[in-house]
């Protein structure tokens, strides 16, 4: 009897649940399981055992515009198996396969391919890495927040007009995202600005010399951010250029994650590949051109000739600016001493006669 009662109660619950889940209008496909019922509130969170503030908030409107908008929560958060769930101790594995088949493919989507590329690069953790090195190497989330679709401003054909043609056959919502998905890859190597890329690589990592020293990187790598910022590329990017080379432009191919040390044969900055790498921007690149030092450390010992020329040019520049100011000031001082007064109006800056001028 007890058994039958439980069964009927459960079936009843299930029936009601199914009824409700079909009745609720427009529930997002990614959230069939209604995780956002709780996680859509921005105050959901707690102070963890280490005293850190942990927010568990997911803004539903941002999520709905992110590239993962169709991925059900548990495709990534696979460890959630009941509701309410236990405190989460596991990390999401970005190489998971999700229950989504991309167009033109029979397999479920996964980031595995690019993660393999990444794991082979300098940033992938290797077995013989020291613990500090393992901890310092960036993981997917370090660089990638859940990306939002961005609209690339089309110069030759207006965004709306091109999209308008797609809308002849396709539905607006889906095709707008698909259009953005493709077009932002047609423009430049990454969808981030050179400034963002430089910031990403420098901040908390390559520009953190204390950390770099601890990881025992080569002298050249120690100086890399500084020498880049002093180079013509770095200066142009620092001044806002959207075309000058950032870190990724030279250090990776279009798969972006394949960054290698320069002595590795696949490295884009390996001597053998330099011409090709420079050719991405510079026409008519020769072997000789490719020899130009991009991360140039101009010190008295490394490059005495360049260093001296640099110093001389510096003297010439400051000498001419401050020399002129100095001369003007000396002249003014002399005139004042001679009793000539300064004035602003009346057509001349000076009034009165020099005391030394005895002729009048």
């Amino acid at each position, binding site marked *: 009897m007890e058994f039958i009662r439980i069964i009927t109660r459960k079936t009843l619950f299930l029936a009601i649940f199914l009824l409700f889940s079909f009745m609720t209008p427009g529930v997002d496909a990614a959230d069939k399981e209604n995780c956002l*019922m709780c996680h859509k509130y921005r105050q959901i*969170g707690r102070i963890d055992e280490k005293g850190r503030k942990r927010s568990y908030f997911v803004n539903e409107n*941002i999520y709905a515009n992110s590239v993962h908008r169709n991925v059900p929560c548990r495709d990534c958060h696979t460890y959630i198996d009941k509701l309410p769930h236990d405190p989460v101790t596991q990390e999401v594995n970005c190489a998971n396969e999700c229950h989504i088949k991309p167009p033109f493919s029979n397999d479920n989507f996964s980031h595995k391919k690019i993660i393999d590329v990444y794991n082979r690069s300098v940033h992938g953790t290797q077995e013989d890495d020291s613990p500090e090195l393992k901890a310092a190497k960036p993981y997917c989330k370090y660089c990638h927040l859940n990306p939002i679709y961005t609209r690339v401003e089309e110069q030759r054909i207006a965004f709306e007009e091109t999209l308008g043609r797609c809308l002849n056959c396709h539905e607006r919502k889906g095709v707008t995202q698909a259009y953005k998905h493709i077009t932002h890859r047609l423009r430049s190597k990454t969808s981030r600005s050179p400034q963002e890329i430089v910031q990403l690589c420098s901040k908390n990592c390559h520009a953190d010399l204390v950390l770099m020293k601890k990881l025992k990187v080569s002298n050249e790598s120690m100086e890399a951010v500084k020498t880049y910022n002093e180079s013509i590329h770095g200066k142009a990017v620092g001044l806002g250029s959207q075309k000058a080379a950032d870190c990724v432009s030279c250090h990776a191919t279009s798969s972006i994650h394949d960054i290698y040390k320069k002595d590795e044969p696949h490295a884009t900055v390996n001597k053998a590949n330099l011409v090709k790498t420079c050719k991405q921007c510079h026409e008519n690149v020769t072997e000789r051109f490719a020899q130009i030092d991009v991360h140039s450390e101009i010190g008295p010992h490394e490059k005495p000739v360049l260093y001296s020329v640099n110093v001389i040019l510096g003297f010439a520049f400051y000498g001419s600016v401050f020399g002129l100011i100095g001369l003007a000031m000396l002249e003014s001082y002399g005139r004042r001493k001679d009793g000539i007064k300064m004035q602003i109006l009346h057509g001349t800056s000076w009034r009165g006669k020099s005391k030394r001028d005895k002729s009048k």
Partner: protein
Amino acid sequence: MPGEPKRLEHPRSVYIIGFIFKIITLSVLIAVIYQITFSPHGPAVLVPIKEKIEESQKSAILEEVRQQEEYEKHRHFHHVVEYPQLPENMRPVCYICHSDYPHSKNKKVRAMLNMHTQFFVCETCHIQEQPGISVTYKWYNPLNETPKGPFYGTEYDPETGNLIEVEDQFSKISPFYRTGDKFKSAIQIQDSALAQDYVKVRDKLTPEQRDNVKKKFHVHIKAKGHECKVCHSRNGILDFRNLGFSANRTIDLEQLNIKGMVTKYESFYIPNLFSE
């Protein structure tokens, strides 16, 4: 000088041209000085001094907080969004001692209870009922005496199924003592000066003294807040329709148990949520 030509007043345009040239000269000068002192593209002669000053003003605690925020941004993945905050002197006094996430003891509901503080003042759950005084619940906004809504969470957007986005970021449901037609706020003393004073001196107090001060802030506060079913049930203490919740939203909140959770997962163990 003999034969010196007479200087005449120049036409006005000459002064304008002169002024423009002075501005240009001045900007070049400023640029050159910046180039020498702080610019990363120059010799940066003053940068070491600036760094030294920053170093001396560095606080280990601030540094750690900043690092944690940075870490949280990357850890979170789903975008850490900034929301407008009440000015410090208007925040309810409870937050001064209890932080933004006051619940931590009961593992099963702590995050969920903290979630409710987005739309409830603490007293909504923690108020000690007193015999003979009836309590009603209304929206309360510290910046606006008669908040009109629409309030967060009261309606679904028919197109997306998400909750509608609202302008009012500060209104929360709050208890009021009711006598006849008069409503009196049941929010405890809002004396943040007292609380801030407490935070400053608490290390100097003995445990008994500390308890005494603490009592000042917890006059009609009970240790355990309302249980879930006090609100999430047909005859809960909140009149959802009167508070502005739409009909389907009211049903969802009253029947929370059926809709989302119990049926889907066998082991549901929020204490007393749906025990009947």
